[in-house]
Structures are given as C-alpha cells and as structure tokens.
C-alpha cells in the first residue's frame, strides 16, 4: 500500500520536478539497496536523481523519519535545503545494518538513458556521513547490475 501511494506521489513529483517533455510513459522499477554490517544504528538513506550536470531533479525515497537528522544526508540536504515537502509521502523507516531496502516505483521512461544519475546519501548516528555513496547513471543497460557503495551500502541495483 505504501509503495503504491509513494509511486503516485512520485509520479507527480517527478513530472513536475523534471518537467519532462511529452506524455511520460512510466514503468515499475525496483530499487534494491543492501547494507553491510557496519555495526551501528539504522542508516538514513536518501535516494534522489540529478541531471548530468549534477543539478537536483527530484527525490525517490527517504529512509528515516526524523527530519532533524536530514542535514547529515549532506548532498541531498544541500540540494533541497532540507525541504521535507520534497519527500512527502515517500518516507519510510531507517534501514538496519545488514538489512535490505527494496522499493518499487513507477519511473518515467524519460529518466533512462538521458544522463540522469541516481544518488544515495547515507548517514548513521555517531558515525561518519556518507553523501552520494552511490551515484549511478540511469540506463537501460545498467539495470540489474549491482554497484558497490563505500561505507554502509554493500550493493545497489535497479531492475526493470
């Protein structure tokens, strides 16, 4: 239920934020983020999209409910100034060490093979911040290929 709601909200968010030309075709995409056993509290993760020049375009998901910690998701926070309207309806629980976060969203076709980059910022209480730990271009070819993170994320992949 939550992912459906999220997808609806997201469709709105991304069509407005990205101002995509023409009628957008959308398809379900599953984003799978697996954390390693870093031995700390649950990680906050921000999933968002930038264009080829690095300009923020929109958020896909926020794992972690307390806005006072969002400033530790540094790149996301820098881009959005911490505006929680960006993640309205697409916020879930933080993700424990060693756990997997899997979300399925209806993403516009126009996002793929157009230079857009998916970022994940990660932060854990009392541990270092890890902005843009994942930054993968969204391409049709890249689907299903895992990418390794540097600190908290052992692998990330998107499947269409």
């Amino acid at each position: 239920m939550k992912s459906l709601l999220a997808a609806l909200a997201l469709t709105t968010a991304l069509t407005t934020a990205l101002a995509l030309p023409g009628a957008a075709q959308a398809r379900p995409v599953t984003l799978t983020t697996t954390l390693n056993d870093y031995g700390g509290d649950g990680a906050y993760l921000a999933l968002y999209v930038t264009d080829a020049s690095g300009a923020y375009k929109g958020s896909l998901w926020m794992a972690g409910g307390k806005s006072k910690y969002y400033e530790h998701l540094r790149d996301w926070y820098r881009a959005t100034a911490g505006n929680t309207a960006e993640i309205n309806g697409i916020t879930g629980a933080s993700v424990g060490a060693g756990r997997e976060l899997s979300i399925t969203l209806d993403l516009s076709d126009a996002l793929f093979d157009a230079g857009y980059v998916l970022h994940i910022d990660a932060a854990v209480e009392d541990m270092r911040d890890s902005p843009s730990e994942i930054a993968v271009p969204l391409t049709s070819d890249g689907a299903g290929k895992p990418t390794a993170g540097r600190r908290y994320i052992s692998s990330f992949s998107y499947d269409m």
Partner: protein
Amino acid sequence: MIRSLHRWPGLAAAALLVVLALSGAALSLFPALETLQTPAQGDPGLSVATLATRIQAQHPGVEQIRRAPSGRIVAYWFEDGAPGAAAIDPATGAGVASADAPAARGWLKNLHRSLFLDDAGRIAAAVGAASMLLLSISGIALVVRRTGGWRKVFSPLKGAVSGRLHVEIARVSVAGLLLSSATALWMSASTFALLPEETAPPAFPAVSGETGAVVADMPALRATAVSTLRELTFPYPGDLTDAFTLKTDTGQGYIDQGTGALVAWNDLGGFDRVSETIYMLHTGKGASVLGLVLGLMALGVPVMAGTGIVLWAGGAGKRPRIRANAAPGRADTILLVGSEGGSTWGFAKTLHDALAADGHSVHTDAMSRFAPTRYTSARRIVVLAATYGDGTAPSSAAGFLDRLAALPEAPAAPLAVLGFGDRNFPAFCGFAQDVADAAAAKGWPALLPMDSVDRQSPQDFARWARAFGAVIGTPLEIDHQPVAPRTCDLTLVSRRDYGTDMQTPVSILRFAVPRLPVWRRWIGQGLPSFAAGDLLGIVPAGSPVTRFYSLASATGDGFAEVCVRKHPGGLCSGQLLSLQPGDSMRAFVRPNPTFRPKRGRAPVILIGAGTGIGPLAGFARANANKRPMHLWFGVRHPDSDLLYGAELAEWQADGRLASLTTAFSRAQTRSYVQDALRRDGAQVAQLIADGAEVLVCGGRGMAAGVAEALTEILAPRGLSLQTLKAEGRYGEDIY
C-alpha cells in the same frame, strides 16, 4: 492528593525507571572516560588551519574533522578506495586511537532512550521521564510537608528504615533527578519534532568553481581556535560545486575551495544554544563531572523504587475494609479518622469492630467527610487523628477544621479526641490537639479528655479504650496489633533481682537468643536482628494486650535483656518475674528506630530512672568505640535498686561511659535525676551546645521533670527542647 500523585506513578513506573536510571548511570561514565583518554591539547591557541594542515599531511584524503565536547578530535579520510578514521593528537595530526565508539555505549544508549523498541520505546522512555519529574515534584512537596517547611527539609529524619532511606536518598538526589528528567523530556520533544526547528545552515552559496585554495591560508580557519571547532568537512574531491563546511560553537558556514574565502555564515540562534546546553546537561558530553554526579544520583532510583514498594506493601496508605459500616444517620457512634499513611485506619477498624460486637451501631469515615448534620442518631463522636509532619492535618482530615469552624453551633453529641503520633517528633499529636482546642472553642462538649497514642502503642490504645468504654458503659478490652507479630520462645538464662528489701522488686532478665541458621531467620523464625532500644513484645497469659519492654542488648550480645519492675497487680510483670532460669516465654521484637543514638561522634546525654536504664545501658554496652556518652541515672537507693551497678562502674572505667552521675530518691540526700541535671546544668548545657543529643527513658512523671529541668537549663542559652526535637536531637522512650 499529593501522596497519590507520588504513589501511583511511582508504582506504575518503578521497573521502567530502574532500567532508565541504571542505563543512564552507566552511560554517565563514558564522557568522563573519553575526557581521560583524550590527549591534552598543549597549545590553547591552536588554529583549525594548523590542525587541518597537520592532518592533511598525514592523511591527504581527509574528508572530515570533528571535535567532540570532550576535546577529542577525530579525522575521517578516504584513501586507496577505503574509508579510515582515527582519534587525532592535535600536536602532530597523527592518529593515536580508534575512532570507534565503544560498542557497549551504543547498546546502553539504545536501551536508555528507546528500550530497543524504536519510537514506541522512545515514547515509553519519555513517559518514564515525565513520571520521574512528577515523582520528584510530588516527592519534594511531601518532604516539605513532612519536615515542616522549606528551611527544615534537610533536618534529621526519624522513623523506620525504609521510609527514612527513601527520603534521605531523595533529598540528596532529587536535584539531579529533576534535571535529568526535565532535560530528557526536552530531548524527547526535540526527537519527535515538537519543538521549534533549530537554525538551518545557511543556503548553499554560489562558489567560484575553482579549486586549489590552501587550507593553511584560509582566513576563517586561521581565525578559528580548535577549542571552538565542531566540524570541518572538506569538499568532495573533484566536485567543483562543493565547498568546505565549517561548524563552530558560534555558527556554521561555507568556505570557497578556490578562493579560500568564507562565502556564507549563519550564527547559532539563542534557541540552538539552549538546546545544546540542555543536551550537555543531560548527556554530560562537555560536562563530564556533572555527568558523573547525575549518574551517581540516578543510582538512588533503584533504592527508592525498592523502598517505595516496601513502604506501599507495608500497608502504608492501605485503608482496611470496614465491615458493617452503619449509615451516618443510623449510627449511635461516629468514628472519624485522620490518617496520613493509613495506620490509624487500623486502629479505627479494631475499635469499630469491638463496638459493633457489643451491639453498637457505628459509622466510620474519614475526617475530611465530616458531616454533622447527617449524624442524626449519634450519641458520641470519636476523632482518631494522626499528625503529619510539623503539626499539619493528615491527608484524610483535609478541611476538617474549616468545616468545624464554619458550623453555626457544635454538634450535641459529645466528642472524644485521640491523637496518634511519635513522641520524638516536636509536634507530637499536634493536629489532634488543634482539633481538641477548636472543639473546645466552639463549645463542643467533651466526652473525655484528649489522649494520645505514642508510636502505635497497643498499650496506649488499650488504656484509652478502657477509659472510653467506662464512659459509654461498654467494657472495652482492645488489643490492636498494627502487624500481627510472629512470636518465638525465649528461655530465661539468668535473672538479677533488686529492690526486694523496699518491696519494689525489679529484675534484669536475660533470655537466650535462639541460634538459628540464616535461612530459618529469613523465613521469619526466631528473633529478627535487634538493637538496644528496640522493644520486646510479650503477650501474657490471660490478656490479649501486648506489653512492651525496652531491650538492653543487641543481637550481637547473644542475649535479649530487659528490666522489669513488679507492678502491684500487674499481670505481665508478675508472670515475667516468676520466671526461673530454664523457663520460657513467648515474645517478639518490634523495631523502635526513633530511639537510639544517631550515627556520629557527637556526645550523647543519657537520662534515665529505674527500669528506664535498660536501653541506656544497652547503648553504653554497645559503645565500643568510646563515643562520649554521659549518663544521669536516678534510682531509690544505692544498696537496693542500682540496676547494672557493677557494669556501669566497669563501662566508666573502660571509657564506654564518659561520666556517670547517680541520684538517689530514698537515700539521705533525697535527689531525683532532674535535680542532678540541674546541679550539673552548666555541663549539660555545654554538651548540648557542643552538639550532644539527649535520650531519655523512664516513666511519664520522670520524663516531664527532666523536660522541665532541661528547659530551665537551656533557656538562658536561647535553646529549647522544641528546637532539639526539630533537629532530631531529643529522643524519649516513655512508659
């Protein structure tokens, strides 16, 4: 009202509070440990520019430098594809210790703030903090009421151990508990975003798009002392849009990585400072000594939870069910109860049952529900009133005096007032006396003069009940035991007889204390531990009323010793004095913690007459470390009833007694103990001025005479027995 605000939240939250307090106390150690382990910073003027340059030299891939409130500096870097971190020695920029927080701290912190239950646990912890705050405030109100005012809050306490321990720990730790619980609530509110938002960092500025500025030359970093640093974050390598982020204890901003200039800055707002101070006060991070103190104070919580439960389970506040309570309009006898802890209700129930058994129709209710217009059939009204603290009304008597004062005229049914209290408190039966005085002023006829029951004495109560029964034409033989005693057989091992020549036989009876394995004593067999001054209760054959004798020995002596005078026609004393070694008697021990020397080295003045020497001799016997104890002792004749004569001389010789003064009322120079005190007035006054406490044991007449003499002695020095009692320095054991 206040008591319920203390009792029920306390019982409901006890387990939760114990967990929070213990985990909090353990957590309080970490900031102190961190402070100890942090290398001292030799150069107080060290700038962030210099520190960052040193660290960069060691770790070119440095990403972030953080300074904890303890002064610990941690650097994070990313080199050769792997992240690294270490605690840094600021003098060299080299790593000296692991940057990882101890795993135990993380575990404890999660237990402390969320009980491992995430948000549900955070809410539970917040409820715990709110309960602690409520308990602290209601507890302060109760202690102020009990001790009789703010200025007396720290006056010495008397009473049973669990109650005293509860209040003593509370007095020491309540400040810390207030601080910890209030700051905890603030932090909970902040976590759940119930507080205004903190100042946001400045909007990310437009940057030059160049790189290459040297850290050592950046003016903002050169101007910032390391001691004010919070965090310096380096730009993401290769990201031309990024900048240095600097956070200090005054604000935060960005430094251009091309020009080295500060391009945006926001000062911390007043609200942020308040938040940070509260965080520091709660966690001790940056105030590790305060943290340790708060942690120590939190350790009082488990003890208070335990003693609190013991107090509650011990019957405090439990109101017995009154069976066959007649309607107020039908009853011929109205019993009104003013009770704080609940023990007076027990007496009321016993009286109620005894009167009902004799055919009376009795209505028993709280004094606060005094409604004389409804007592249409009443022929007598009885007030059983305890006193709370410094003479104030106990909780179940709230409003009684106001209601009485507001009556157009006093009830026609005559009134009997019985006060309950502890003679060692200055306002002994003060509230009952107020009731009696107010009734007299109103013209309310008295059924019999006001009387008092000292320390729940069954004897006092039985004596009053006999007098009351005689007035109303119902013989009342009442034994009210607040707690049913578990008796055990004591065997007489020796007796020493005195006074036989004066036809006033007195004996020192020494009973063997049954030696039982510890586990049998735990299950309540044998005698519990006792000290001199505690009471030996004996129920004689042929009467339900227990008699109490003050013990002259302690458990460690291996025997239980009492002094018994033969009363003409006395049932119990007769039976005791007819015992021969080898005979036995059923007995039990009742603690009497208000009558014994307080701990310390202050001098002790012991004053006794006749069998009153018992507990005083016990105090001297136990005085192995030779605290100055001065005894004034009155008997009839040195050759007849000088109890403990040989031992007293011996104890004086070995220093257990600093001085011994005797007074003989039937010798040639007739003198009572109060006369001896007057003669030694200067010495007595000096001892009291030196902080001595006074313990008096004997009959009522002798105690009154002693009080009078001491009042005369102390008056010129501006001292009174009232002040001594208020300071817990005047104890009486009177029979």
